[in-house]
């Protein structure tokens, strides 16, 4: 119970970073932290006390395996996080090239 809550606190630190910071790279870092907290939260769900890694051994028949489904989904979600982060970083690089700054409040050429 405490672990889940700590994980959500980490999620909120990332959310704070995204909503409050003015520097684009800080927002990307906040987004990255939110992705980490999200993945950890899902894997925490699948843990079993004194369980074993979900890989069959040749000789004995392992019964108390940890839940493999969250691990499969979080593998997908880690690579999704990499894809999104790489895309947002390349947008930030092009913005820096065009605007000359990382400060979101100065990047205001859009009207309205």
């Amino acid at each position, binding site marked *: 119970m405490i672990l889940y809550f700590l994980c959500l606190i980490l999620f909120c630190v990332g959310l704070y970073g995204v909503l409050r910071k003015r520097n684009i790279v800080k927002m990307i870092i906040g987004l990255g932290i939110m992705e980490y907290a999200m993945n950890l939260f899902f894997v925490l769900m699948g843990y079993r006390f004194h369980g074993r890694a979900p890989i069959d051994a040749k000789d004995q028949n392992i019964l108390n395996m940890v839940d493999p489904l969250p691990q499969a989904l979080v593998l997908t979600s880690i*690579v999704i996080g990499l894809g999104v982060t790489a895309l947002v970083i*390349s947008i930030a690089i092009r913005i820096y090239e065009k605007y000359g700054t990382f400060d979101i409040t100065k990047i205001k050429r859009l009207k309205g």
Partner: protein
Amino acid sequence: MINNPETGMTLIVKTITRLTVGLILLFGIYIILHGHLSPGGGFAGGVIVALSFVHLMLAFGKDVAVSRVSKNLASNLESIGAMMFLLVALLGFLRGSFFLNILAKGSPFNLFSAGTIPLSNIAIGIKVGVGLFAIFLALVVLERSK
């Protein structure tokens, strides 16, 4: 390996890289191939392969790595990898449904054992490896041309 001093890092890094790049690439291929036996699979192995190219580029400067894998070759190889994975999926159509694992299952603990899973692992490994290296090439090429 042309080691003209001005591109890439110092000589020490270059000599160490010359030793380790092959090992990293080999380790990545091992992870891809043994995806269904040991931990790690197409994704982890592909990223390791990409890192070996990135390692090569960081140490020896842009032109060495680009001479090996140019940018449009990278994106073509990536689409080929993606096509392969889709074909492995479509293979399942031959006998019933979409992603059916139709190849022989074999006995569990040896290398050629899990039907189409090793093929999918190889296809994903190629795609992820070359794709991420193409991202890195695009990022670095932008830097040069400014």
